[in-house]
């Protein structure tokens, strides 16, 4: 029964990596800046999910902290980019 779970974990990791590649494609294709920011957000999220899958497959808790940090950095960077698109500067005087 463990082999089925291993296959499912492999499948999920493969799907997340493919989703990262598609987000990268949209980041290069994206006609406007907000498309690229949205693709970067998706890229961050799928990277976090890939790290969680590594944590599940190797059953260690190190990857959990890395996933939390990546979620935090992805949120901060997306907020900064959106603020820049909205206002023209990130930190207003």
């Amino acid at each position, binding site marked *: 029964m*463990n082999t*089925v779970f291993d296959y*499912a974990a492999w499948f*999920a990791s493969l*799907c997340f990596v493919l989703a*990262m590649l598609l987000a990268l494609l949209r980041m290069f294709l994206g006609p406007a800046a*907000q498309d690229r920011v949205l693709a970067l957000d998706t890229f961050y999220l799928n990277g976090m999910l890939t790290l969680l899958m590594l944590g*599940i497959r190797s*059953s260690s808790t190190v990857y959990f902290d890395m996933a939390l940090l990546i979620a935090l950095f992805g949120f901060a960077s997306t907020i900064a980019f*959106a603020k820049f698109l909205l206002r023209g500067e990130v930190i207003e005087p």
Partner: protein
Amino acid sequence: MNGTELPLWVTIPGTLLLVAAGLLTLIGAMGLVRLPDFFARMHPPTMGTTLGTGCVLIASMLVSSALEQRPVVHELLITLFIVMTAPVTAMLLMRAAVFRAQRKSVEAEPPTGAASVARRAQDESRTHDENRRLAERSAPTDEPS
């Protein structure tokens, strides 16, 4: 899995959750690539953000609880963080996109207002006068050819 056998109550829901999360996230990313408009492209990645992350985190909780023989719930931190931050991110990006679309449309279309309307009417009358003058001047020269 380091040789340790997972119990059946972890394996079956964990497998289903992982497969569902992978499919949902992949479909969301394909929608991000394939949809035609930014305002349509806003929607598909949220499927991976909410359902995909939720499924993976529940599966991770199940597996680590079964491996450590005690309930492990520290994945709820990521769930809480994602649930709090995803709407903020989506709303700010949406506002930025709407703002940029409005600015582009204002720059594209000609200015409206009383002064500009009067100026445009003046321009049209001037061009009309010039056309008539040009027609009168060129009328005799058209005949011989």
